[in-house]
């Protein structure tokens, strides 16, 4: 019954060491010196600029990880996070640029629009699963393509700023200042850290933090969270205890989509000047899929996901100094991939070891005549 904590802690560490070794072998096999890469990581990876970059990237990764993890908790695979956040970011950025509200309300309004859009888009695969039995992997992956197409259509037709208003990519109008989130630069400088020119520490990390706390509370402290976990681990038992499985599917997808809606807005709401708007540059693609990897890395645990998001963001931030040092930046992608695989494998190995230990301890306990065979008098 009791989990072996030593084993539980050893698994991720072993997995990461294994990933590093495999990455080193790959580097050596492709004619690069793993030592050079390590040098860049040590020399450049912890510079202020990279740390800020890592933190800024970690916030959306964390939110993406939580969005996916909510589905995972009841073995629902919301692969549609990608489409949900991209559509939500577009609609929210457009809505945010179209209204004028006092500062805190404006920010709240933008976030609410994003949450509602993400939830609504995620409700489609949820309803299809509950009413028609369409598997959510199929429907949500299809809806990703539709979301991209729909987003491009909406942007082109109604949401875009008039051509020529801003240089660069096509996008929505700029968010008015009350709709933007403050940067943490002042705070950090007060703490005595000198920020190099152009570094912007976004406050979006606090939104990620709030989501993390809420996720933890809902999953472990509420009736709904209990039902969710119960439906995930034993759907028959959950149903027998009065949980409506169809309702659970829809509610879980909607919640997952609601969180997903918030993934893509960090740059839009924190950028300066004309960059504070939805474009292909401010809202990058692929975060939804990254979220799947991060949820796996973090084992759906609120703290685990945070560590996974930070690790992933750190490796992404390393791409810049690695390219600059003429080292293959792809090594970070390989490291990320191998890390996920290693973590999954390591925990599977741990699970089997624990199972064996439990089985043998059970056997030991039941060596004297098994209790079940003692018939009541």
């Amino acid at each position, binding site marked *: 019954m009791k989990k072996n904590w030593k084993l539980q802690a050893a698994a991720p560490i072993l997995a990461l060491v294994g990933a590093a070794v*495999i990455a080193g072998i*790959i580097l050596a*096999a*492709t004619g690069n010196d793993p030592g050079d890469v390590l040098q860049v990581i040590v020399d450049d990876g912890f510079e202020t*600029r990279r740390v800020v*970059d890592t933190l800024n*990237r970690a916030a959306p990764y964390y939110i993406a990880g939580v969005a996916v993890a909510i589905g995972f908790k009841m073995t629902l695979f919301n692969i549609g996070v990608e489409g949900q956040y991209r559509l939500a970011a577009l609609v929210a950025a457009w809505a945010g640029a179209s209204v004028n509200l006092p500062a805190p309300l404006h920010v709240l309004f933008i976030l609410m629009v994003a949450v509602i859009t993400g939830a609504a888009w995620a409700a489609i695969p949820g309803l299809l699963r509950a009413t028609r039995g369409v598997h959510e992997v199929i429907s949500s992956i299809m809806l990703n393509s539709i979301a*991209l*197409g729909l*987003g*491009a*259509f909406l*942007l*082109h037709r109604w949401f*875009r700023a008039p*051509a*020529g208003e801003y*240089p*660069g*990519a*096509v*996008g929505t109008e700029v968010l008015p200042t009350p709709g933007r989130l403050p940067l943490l630069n002042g705070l950090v400088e007060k703490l005595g850290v000198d920020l*190099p*020119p*152009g570094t912007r520490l976004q406050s979006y990390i606090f939104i990620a933090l709030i989501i993390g706390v809420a996720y933890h509370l809902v999953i472990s402290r509420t009736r709904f969270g209990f039902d969710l976990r119960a439906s995930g681990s034993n759907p028959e038992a959950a149903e027998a205890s009065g949980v409506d499985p169809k309702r659970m599917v829809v509610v879980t997808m909607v919640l997952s989509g609601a969180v997903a809606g918030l993934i893509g807005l960090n740059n839009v709401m924190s950028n*300066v*000047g*004309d*960059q504070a708007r939805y*474009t*292909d*540059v*401010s809202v*990058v*693609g*692929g975060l939804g899929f990254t979220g799947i990897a991060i949820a796996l890395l973090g084992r759906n645990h609120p703290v685990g996901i945070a560590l996974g998001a930070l690790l992933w963001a750190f490796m*992404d*931030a390393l*791409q*810049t*100094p690695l*390219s*600059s040092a*003429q080292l*293959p*930046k*792809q090594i970070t992608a*390989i490291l990320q*991939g*191998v890390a996920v*695989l290693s973590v999954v*494998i390591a925990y599977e190995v741990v699970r089997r070891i624990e199972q064996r230990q439990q089985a043998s301890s059970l056997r030991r306990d039941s060596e004297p005549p098994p209790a079940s065979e003692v018939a009541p008098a």
Partner: protein
Amino acid sequence: MKQKRWGVFFILFAVISLVLAGCGDDDDDGGDTTTTEAGGDSGDNGDSGSSGDLKVGMVFDVGGKGDKSFNDSAFKGLTEAAEEFDVEVRELEPDAEGSNREALMRQLADEGYGLIIGVGFAFAEVMPAIVADYPDTEFAIVDSVVEADNVASLVFAEHEGSFLVGAIAAQKSEAGHIGFVGGVETQLIQKFEAGFVAGAKAVNPDIVVDVKYITPDGDFSGFADPARGKTVAAGLYAGGADIVYHAAGQSGNGVIEAAVEADALVIGVDSNQYLSASPEAQPHILTSMLKRVDVAVFNTIEAWVNGEFTAGTSLFSLENDGVGFATDGDLIVDVDAINELRDQIVAGEIEVPTEP
């Protein structure tokens, strides 16, 4: 139990070999970064704003390098400048999501690169914030305009060059039916379309021009998807067009493939695509609309090395040979007539539209 364990090893092995195969491919593309150092110490013949060696940096857009078209043309200009002048050059490319365009530019600026060139209009999004932080560094952007005291904006009259290749296509087309494939339906690519259609109609007013874009505006995958480029072009050929002009970046390589399979003609874009095409594709390349990004880049570096860098917008048009057409393969029906059209455009007698 044993079998299962071997299964895990097999999967690991498969994943590692896949990863390795991926690395190999990237290496074939020529890797990511190259540093070319031409000569030793440079003299004090520039106002690079930084002391010591003259260093020129270039940042491409996502999937840019190796497109045999727009980006490779910029790279050609950079390489030629590295050979010609006493400068150190380095070129970088952002990650697959394009999330570190700004970080890469700042990295180059921090390392003392005196001239940094952003290739592609997406850089107009991030450059205003960057250039203000590095007033002593000079910047250049290709294909868009950034207004600042230390930025040279290099823009092209693509519609003029496209007009000429439209005329070439109309001369050549036996079916009286030609096509256009755009990568992404942006204002920039619509300039190509508008010029092409106008040029074709100038030669043959009855000609049919089918226009297809791979993706709508806002979805930039259309520039980097040769498979879809091929499908779209194959559709145009099957619909009766015998010549297709593409303005689709890397996706254009798929358009060229479709031309070979349909045994029809294709018009390249930006670079002289006859030169980069395979021997079996060459007979299918009627001409290429040349957008001399290489010349623009080279001239910018030359001016900077000589201390004559000027901020502001430079337009490269037919007049200064910034755009033009290629004659390799000798497939053009009447080059003189095309040159006549060219002269008329330069003289202002023909006004080429910029919007379809």
